[in-house]
């Protein structure tokens, strides 16, 4: 969908009331467009927690996402170093041209830099900015600091936590800690979505695969562990797992026999996240795979 225009607002050291006012002003500006006011059709609030090292990657994914999920994205950049306690905000209201219609539809991206102690209570900063009555998806870049304040608080206001365990260093040890969250928030894992096309191929091997004893996966460690966990859980068997690192899943071997490549191209990071934002509710099969991944 073509981008029609972007309206921006920036503020240093602001209060949340300033942000609310700025949003209203930006919206008001659109009313006077010759094409009439921009449409806002909201389906969710997309909350993103971005430690410094993920900043560039997030921008890339957001670019691919905005035009697919018309909603409010709130991107939080924590800077816990204590130089100053402040909130800096940048708002971009992006308007996209709708095909065949003389109207634009807008999406809001609110980038918030949380300095010093402001990074300690993010939920209180985000809560006033959430869209009423709509689900909140929390995308956490990198390995979440399980048990720590910001994660605990943000989980409290989110309906779904979206992670990508291929971004984690501490595997498989982190999986049981993730599993502890399952009763509190629905979780999706982009690493798990990446395995989906391969899971389809593996499911096609039924009933022969029922007796599987050895699985080899060449690909990211997380995807291999999850596939192993999935097969253990689903087949109810002890399966030995051999992993060979690679950027994406490139080969799977079951009991010495290579599995056919899945058809089609793997999805882009934006597509994968976009798919996750369409799922509501818990994914029991994923939860089972996570629990069995650390065995």
């Amino acid at each position, binding site marked *: 969908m073509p981008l029609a225009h972007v309206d921006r607002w920036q503020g240093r050291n602001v209060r949340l009331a300033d942000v609310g006012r700025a949003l209203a002003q930006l919206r008001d500006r659109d009313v006077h467009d010759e094409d009439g006011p921009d*449409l806002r059709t909201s*389906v969710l609030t997309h909350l993103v927690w971005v430690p410094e090292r993920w900043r560039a990657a997030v921008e890339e994914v957001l670019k691919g996402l905005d035009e697919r999920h018309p909603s409010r994205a709130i991107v939080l950049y924590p800077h816990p170093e204590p130089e100053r306690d402040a909130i800096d905000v940048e708002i971009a209201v992006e308007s996209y041209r709708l095909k065949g*219609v003389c109207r634009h539809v807008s999406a809001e991206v609110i980038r918030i830099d949380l300095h010093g102690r402001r990074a300690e209570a993010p939920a209180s900063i985000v809560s006033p900015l959430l869209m009423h009555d709509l689900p909140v998806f929390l995308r956490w870049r990198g390995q979440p600091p399980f048990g720590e304040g910001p994660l605990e608080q943000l989980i409290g206001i989110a309906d779904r936590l979206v992670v990508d365990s291929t971004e984690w260093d501490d595997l498989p040890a982190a999986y049981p800690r993730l599993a502890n969250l399952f009763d509190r928030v629905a979780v999706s894992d982009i690493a798990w979505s990446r395995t*989906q096309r391969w899971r389809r191929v593996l499911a096609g091997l039924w009933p022969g695969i029922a007796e599987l004893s050895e699985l080899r996966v060449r690909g990211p460690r997380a995807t291999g562990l999850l596939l192993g966990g999935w097969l253990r859980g689903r087949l109810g068997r002890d399966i030995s797992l051999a992993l060979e690192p690679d950027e994406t899943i490139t080969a799977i071997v079951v009991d010495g026999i290579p599995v056919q490549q899945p*058809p089609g191209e793997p999805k882009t990071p934006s597509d994968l996240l976009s798919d996750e934002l369409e799922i509501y509710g818990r994914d029991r099969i994923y939860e089972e795979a996570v629990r069995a991944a650390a065995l």
Partner: protein
Amino acid sequence: MAETDQAVVEAENPLLEGLRLRRRPDPCALVIFGASGDLTTRKLFPAIYSLAVRRLLPERFAIVGIARTEESDEDFRQRMREAVEEHSRDELREDVWQELAAGMRYVTSEFDDPGGWERLTRALNALDAERGTNGNRVYYLAVPPGAIANLADELGKRRETEGWTRLVVEKPFGRDRASATDLNERIHCHFSEREIFRIDHYLGKETVQNMLALRFANGIFEPIWNRQFVDHVQITVAESIGIEDRAEFYEQAGAIRDIFQNHLLQLLALTAMEPPIDFTADSVRNEKVKVLRSMQTPGPSTVVRGQYGRGFVEGEEVAGYREEPRVAPDSMTETFVAAELYVDNWRWADTPFYVRVGKRLPRRETTIAIHFKRAPHPPFEELAAEGLRPNVLIVQVQPDEGVSLAIGAKVPGQGMTIRTVHMDFLYGGAFRTGLPEAYERLILDTLLGDATLFTRADEVDEQWALVDAIVAAWQRDRPGFPNYDAGTWGPPSAEELLARAGRAWRRN
């Protein structure tokens, strides 16, 4: 593997659980009769290609085109490639196209040439062997209506013993109740109702299906979706184009057979039907047919017909209907129909459904508008509320697919002035994946064997019964055609239809 064995293996497979698997159709061959025609070029192939792009076609799949035009397999592939490039909503991807093209064959034949049938059988058998299509067949009859019965006979006589067979029939289905009954009987000689897919492509449109979502997935509409709260319903299927080069067809059909009998009555049935117990083909169609059966036969004073004369559409002067090429200069074919219809049941008794269809109207639009009753006693001064109209819920089927609700709101400032404002939900704004074309959904459903969005024999029968009754009354008079200018909303009598009850058509 037979369909049931496959289902058992799938049911036992623990690895399938939670895999968001779209059901993939069984291996099969799609045979298109009329492969050189307009429908195949503009709609069917672009839709098939879009299904291929999304990997929704069967893994083992083949297409055989048949028509009189002399063509080789390669010519057919080339022509269809151009059709996809010109008409598809998706860019042509070489890998997807090559995979599809590898399974494409073409048979040149007159439909009544026995040699042609043999060539077709040979081609299909060869495809079963080469591509594993297992004797499963979808026969798509994209042919002139007069050819359908004979084709169904021939196909019936030559039914494969292995695999399943489905027959897809384009509209129009018959030209009156008697001919539709006859056609149904001829087809039923060889095919069961489960195997017959009668196309009404309106049912493939996302917004038409959204009508069901709107009504039955939202708790707030159903309680007020009845005679207690609804003043009346307006359904408009307006086209700004004329008859293009379809004069022969249109002279025979007119607006009542072209649009009213099928699309319009289907929209009405979906608007008025009771909630089905589930979304299976028979539950949905049972409810629709009940609506069609409850419809009163309209008297002559509640039906208006029109024919366009010269006028202006989008700033351009256009010819009157009788001046169109190959139209009789004294043609009595109607290009406009408006009617006041009633559904005689507990939900809708005495609630008028005003419907209109027509060509050369000011713009292309298909809408269903539910006009609610006025607020019983607005506590504002008359002047303050003069801009206030009753609430209207508008389902915009095309273009600008969406839903809009007209509500009264206070004009900012001193005093209490009320105006009607529209709250819009635009489909494209909420779900930005491009909307699939109606034919994509319908072709996929025929491959899957899901008949929910196809018209059943008894629906067709009821639709024709109503149309026959209207047309019978028309035999008795000769209106002074043309009676509306191209680019206007039909003859003045269409306005009077509503005006006598103190109502008016929606205007924009």
